[in-house]
């Protein structure tokens, strides 16, 4: 019972953390927008990080973002303009909608499935069953012991 609770808790924590928005940025809105958009020059980096000094896409895009911001446009409005001009490809990460939602969910589905399989396998391998887990077997006392120092001493003796 306690194990099931732990598994559910693990899944809940993982789900919550997965939905936590991660921002790798500490800069201003200009910087945030540049990180949200991918450079289409072929470098595969964001507009902000494009390594090409005379990039035909990133440099004009940065200037445009600056211009839009000075006009009072919001981050979402600016991103929408870029998407309407260049397609969804310009977004550094796909929107969490439609088929692309699968992109975000799949790794966690796979993880939960794998954890589930592992739990089932371990349950199958545990000789004494989950209910007996909390009882300490004599072998366990010898192996891990009530005192970890004894275990290390034992291993060191074996070693020498």
């Amino acid at each position, binding site marked *: 019972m306690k194990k099931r609770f732990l598994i559910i808790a693990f899944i809940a924590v*993982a789900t919550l953390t997965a939905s936590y928005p991660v921002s790798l940025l500490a800069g201003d809105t200009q910087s945030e927008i540049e990180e949200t958009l991918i450079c289409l020059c072929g470098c595969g980096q964001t507009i902000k990080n494009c390594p090409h000094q005379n990039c035909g896409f990133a440099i004009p895009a940065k200037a445009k973002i600056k211009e839009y911001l000075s006009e009072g446009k919001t981050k979402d409005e600016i991103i929408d303009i870029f998407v309407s001009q260049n397609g969804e*490809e310009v977004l550094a990460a796909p929107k969490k909608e439609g088929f692309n939602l699968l992109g975000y969910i799949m790794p966690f589905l796979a993880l939960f499935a794998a954890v589930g399989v592992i739990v089932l396998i371990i349950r199958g391998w545990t000789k004494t069953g989950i209910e007996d*887990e909390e009882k*300490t077997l004599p072998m366990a006392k010898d192996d891990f*012991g009530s005192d*970890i120092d004894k275990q290390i001493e034992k291993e060191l003796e074996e070693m020498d």
Partner: protein
Amino acid sequence: MLIEIGRASLNIAFVMAIYVAIASVIGVVRKDLRFVTSARRGIYAIFFLATTSTGVLLNAFLTNDFSIKYVASYSEKALGLHYKIAALWGGNDGSLLFWIFGLASFAALMAFQNRKDRSHAFIPYTYTVIMVILIFFLILTCFLTNPFDTFPPSMVPADGRGLNPMLQTPGMIFHPPALLWGYVGFTIPFAFAVAALLTRELDSVWIIKTRKWTLFSWTLLSIGNIMGAEWAYDELGWGGFWAWDPVENASFIPWLTATAYLHSVMIQERRNMLKVWNMFLIVITFALTIFGTFLVRSGVLQSVHDFGVSEMGPYFIVFMALTSAIAFGLIIYRYDDLKSDNNQLESFLSREATFLLNNVILLALAFATLWGTVFPLISELATGNKITVGPPFFAQVNTPLFLILLIITGICPLIGWRKASPENLRRNFVVPTVLLILTAVLLFVFKMRHVYAILCFSFSTFVLHTIFMEYYRGVKARKKLKGEGTLKALVNLLWKKKRRYGGYLIHAGIVMVFIGATGSSVFVTEKAKNLHIGETMEIGDYKLKYEAIRSREKPNYEAVVAFLSVYKNGEKIEVITPEKRFYNKFQGEPTSEVAIRRTLKEDLFVILAAFEKDRTITIKAIINPLINWMWIGACLAIFGGFYVLLPDGRKKVKA
């Protein structure tokens, strides 16, 4: 003449590899050692031929032999000597030759190591598997992308096109070879695994024989990855170290699966369990190394690192599919033999179970990274729309997985093999958990509000404490048992239990990498400003004063250098010189050479973004907190890897 020798060496190596593959099998089938011995000598010959071929190409670079198309494409007369050497693997053809050289070297070493082993039939089969893989690469090199292709005499250029400026950095001398040879190294354990499956010798012998090969390859791959990150940080000039680029991901994914294998194999050695799982992991790791090699050459995904579109993609796909299908087919065929009679766990609360969880998280990370890398292709197939999966996606998906992995690194050593009682757990977990909570509270009190950063730093405290306690208890036990002083006890502990305590060095290094990566990703500060001579800009505790701008000429480039004085607390501490380089052969692609002031607390990263004729410059300055802990941690982990590779310090007991 030399070119002909280089080309002929490759062709002979190709024929020889076919001979070795066949002779090894005949040797086993007929139980005739002469064939096996002949095959082994054939491997030595292939090593000699591959070395000759590589040497000829290297010589062509060093002597500016532009009659060779490959040399003309990646070198020039004015290129520095060290970059001429690095240009050898700077393009597709040369890097494949370098792969062949690596595999031939490893095969020869492996054959030499096992030259006296006549009791295991899988050794000759190992030769065969390695040769089949070598034959594939030799086919590509001899018939598709021969690095010795030449221009007709009338069309030989006077000078080469030069090496891509972004590759003209010291990191490029070490990063690609480490990565390529890390990939190549996993061929050896893969070959042993397949050979063990073929011969049904499925005990732990092949695992023990490949233990050091696996760790060696893992260490090389670690060096390759971290040097790639360092290259990105220094050379690309954007202040970051990892952009989740497809090619970066392609080298990170096999590193993850190999890390999982290195852990799970311990359970097979100790408990004779997880045989199927370990087979799966080594096969998937090898397949992923081929996938990485494919990705950098296929042109299917855009990357700053790739070699551009080539015709080799389908060949790699077919080869990867075939080798994986055969290996997985063998695992299924031998499933009954692989199933361990000893698959018994006393409890969920055992080190075995936490190792399995560690494996699951590492594989989940590998899957998430692979999934994100190929998802643009999947999405385009499904919806017809082109999308991009970049850093924000990976930050969202991978960060929680990294954090779980981090905390498991600390939990594992606290739980004993077989079964731990609740009393043991309470005893071992109380102090590190209190430290974890204390760290989190302190960070919150000191106004840190980034949840993932708080989790990372507090989990790191937990893990570092458990590692420290492992050393402390070991030293204490030695002092008590052997009467040694603290330092001697520590040295002996490290020397006599390299795998265990060297492993903890790796863990400590990885924790530092986590700390550095988090600090520099989450708390980065950035500022850009146009400056006239004499003007200043401030960032963090630093003030930068623009003193002068000058140009300087080198044989193959011209540089514009800005001189900026760095002040901290009103005191001038350094003059830094960010520059912009204009390579003669790549005029349209100026590169930024950043100036970095490194301290353990943070890096001051200064880029000369632009300059005008009136000497106005645009400076972009970045403060990257804690980033040097990442490099230090990586060095420690790599040192730990090599340390574990050292010969066993234990005295051998005579039977």
